[in-house]
């Protein structure tokens, strides 16, 4: 098992760019699969 690494803090990007990621890992993988199936 790969040891977990520290999490990344995106507070600055959220604050200064209004960056708001929509996809967690699994959602991104699902969207990726959907694109491959098109």
């Amino acid at each position, binding site marked *: 098992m790969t040891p977990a690494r520290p999490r*990344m803090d995106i507070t600055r990007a959220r604050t200064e760019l209004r960056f708001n990621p929509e996809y967690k890992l699994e959602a991104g993988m699902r969207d990726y699969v959907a694109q491959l199936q098109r």
Partner: protein
Amino acid sequence: MRVLITGAGLIGTHTAKELADRGDEVMFFDFAPRPDYIRRVTGRDLTVIRGDIRDLAALVDAFQQVRPECVIHLAASVGEANIDNVYAGFQVNLVATINVAEAARLTGVRRLVHASTQALYVGEDPNELLGEDSPIDCRERVYNASKLGCEHVLRTYAAKHKLELALLRFAGVFGYYSVAGGPGVAVQQAVWDAMAGKAVTLNVYESVDFIYAKDLANGIALACIHRLWRTKSLILAAVRSPGSKTSKQRSAKSFRGSK
């Protein structure tokens, strides 16, 4: 806004789509572009200037031709596994970035967005939260050393020549259709395994931070259009759930059958 993107790969094409959808004018500078892939991701036939980022004269020509208001520098050898020659790795990642900065200076480009990496962070405590000011180091890796060197070079150019600079430290990127390197390769393999009907184990993939190409493209576009008054380092990652399980099994059906 007129934007020139170096590198028409996974991140470049998704960023181009994001910007073009907003009404921006986007062009690529790429050594070996794949027109079908660019069209598939962006839905457009975008202009690609063929050239090598190690060639300063070619970059200057491209910048003069496009007159970009912002350059997004993404072209690179990605991940330590893809760099089998130290000299060549530094040429592609570090020397080429110096070329991009110099071409920007020579042609009057005012805004530069650069792809850096979460791999620079040295913290290993899983309970730690890493921010832009957390300790970074190259740890004798060519990829990390080149990216760290790029940050120093670009900060210096920005200070000396009043460039507006965003240094974006990406989490592991994955997405349609081709991951050049880094931890996103493992996610890509998992997706392909799922498509082939195999069970997918996510234990590896939940141990580091990832970002989906569409989210990353949105973050890069935001860095491009926001006016930056001074050099900024910014982390772009998805939100990893605190306490997420370190080992999960997902069947192929669970990916293929859900939206």
